């Protein structure tokens, strides 16, 4: 498994990743993936990341004093990236345009 950007989250990440990989190969790919069996582990991992992000930001900033992180912080940058990816959701989630859905 790969590491986490926050080394303190490596352990919870490893547990979640193993659970996900098992679920993906044994359930999801066989069409039995309706139930998210790794939700509790994911919450632990996500909590760890959320707690670590401020420290992470300052760690990256000290490496890169002129970088964008100092001005905006990782949360803000993620928000922007998410916004930027909205178009690909429309394409890859097989979403119908709202006005077409309303007509049907």
């Amino acid at each position, binding site marked *: 498994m790969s590491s986490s950007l926050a080394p303190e989250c490596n352990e919870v990440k490893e547990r979640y990743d193993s659970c996900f990989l098992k679920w993906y190969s044994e359930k999801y790919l066989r069409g039995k993936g309706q139930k998210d069996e790794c939700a509790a582990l994911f919450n632990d991992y996500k909590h760890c990341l959320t707690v670590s992000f401020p420290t992470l930001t300052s760690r990256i900033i000290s490496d890169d004093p002129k970088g964008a992180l100092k001005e905006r912080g990782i949360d803000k940058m993620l928000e922007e990236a998410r916004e930027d990816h909205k178009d*690909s959701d429309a394409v890859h989630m097989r979403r119908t345009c709202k006005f077409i859905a309303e007509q049907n």
Partner: protein
Amino acid sequence: MKVFSNDCTFNYSWEEVSTGNWVKYCPWNDQSTHVIAVDTLSRQVDPKTGILRTERLITCKQSAPQWLNSLMGSSDVSLVFETSYVDLASKKVTMTSSNMTWSNLLSVHETVVYQPLSERQTRFSQEAKITALCGGWQKVKNAVEEATVCRFSENARKGKEGFESVLEMSRRVFSEERQKEQNQRKMVAA
């Protein structure tokens, strides 16, 4: 803008490749060492379509050419945001990613698609659109774009080699696991 595109075929089923894809940057991949961390930020299965949507934060550490560094004043750590979609119904994995750092100077949008060619073969297609945003001379922009394309193609070559070793190891480990399970079942039955 410059476009980098690359296609290749893996001699593994789509199921194997799409599973291996989640562990592409593990220690079995001794080639793509520029990826130092991969974090999952969100993941859901869409109840209507069954599409698995995942958001990940990918951290890379790779030195840029010195002239580019002095131009951008950036460290060698860069962050990439990736949204991926696994569409089980049409057997297609699509991964879209873009750069979070250096984004005031450079925009990199990459799309990777994995689709089955046959029962035992999977096609990988990659396309990256690279645009230098720095104001100023066209010459500088071109040089920034060219350096990025060059790095992309180098990483793509290493990526294929590294992923091949991940797939090989995964196949071995999965078959060992299956063997173990079978043996256990036999023991229980006996």
